[in-house]
């Protein structure tokens, strides 16, 4: 009984409940290039945080995936995964890179 309870508790604690905060997509041209993606995240305890700098990190990571190129069809997802007392905030971006 204790094992079952422990397993159930562990499952509940380790599995995150995800919520999708926002999604956006920009125009996709017909001559799109290669699909690239980047992401960035931060961890928040009890919802206390003073900054949202991980968004800039996601943008910089995406830029690095397409140096000297043009990124179009950018899909941006902002999502939050809730664990017990801890939240993972994440920005996932992908787009089509056309090299110059």
């Amino acid at each position, binding site marked *: 009984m204790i094992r079952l309870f422990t397993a159930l508790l562990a499952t509940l604690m380790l599995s995150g409940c995800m919520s999708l*905060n*926002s999604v*956006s997509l*920009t*125009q996709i041209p017909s001559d799109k290039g290669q699909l690239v993606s980047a992401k960035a995240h931060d961890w928040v305890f009890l*919802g*206390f*945080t*003073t*900054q*949202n700098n991980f*968004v*800039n990190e*996601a*943008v910089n990571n*995406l*830029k690095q995936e*397409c*140096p*000297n*190129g*043009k*990124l*179009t*069809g*950018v899909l*941006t997802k*902002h999502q939050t995964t809730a664990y017990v007392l801890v939240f993972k*905030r994440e*920005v996932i*971006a992908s*787009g089509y890179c*056309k*090299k*110059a």
Partner: protein
Amino acid sequence: MQKLILVSALLLLGACARLDHVQIGDIDQSNGALSPISVKVSENGVEMAVVAGVAAELASQSKRNQQLKEIRDFLALINMGPRTGNPVFFDTYAQNVLDALYQQCASGKITGIRNIREGKTYGPVSGEIVRIDADCIL
């Protein structure tokens, strides 16, 4: 007095950042060097129901306490519904962000526009922020 100190501490310590929406636009790195530009506008938001709730907790007279709780419930009812952040008093505070963005980019060629809707919360009061980051093609 203890309640007042507790509420003040909560208000001061509870300066939390909130992220509501992120949108990344097309990024053109093929037409020259990029220089980052940014515009941020903010408006004060107030959760009036929470303010009334705190006032009710602080009220010493039971009759006043009851009245404030009724006001709190009424305010909660009229502010019910889907929303992003706390209600603000002026809804035009983010109208001039495009002009402000262009003023920072002499070439007029802007790429990589990021729309970020965020907030800074100080208890029942918040700063409802609209931030536009972008890159100016030099």
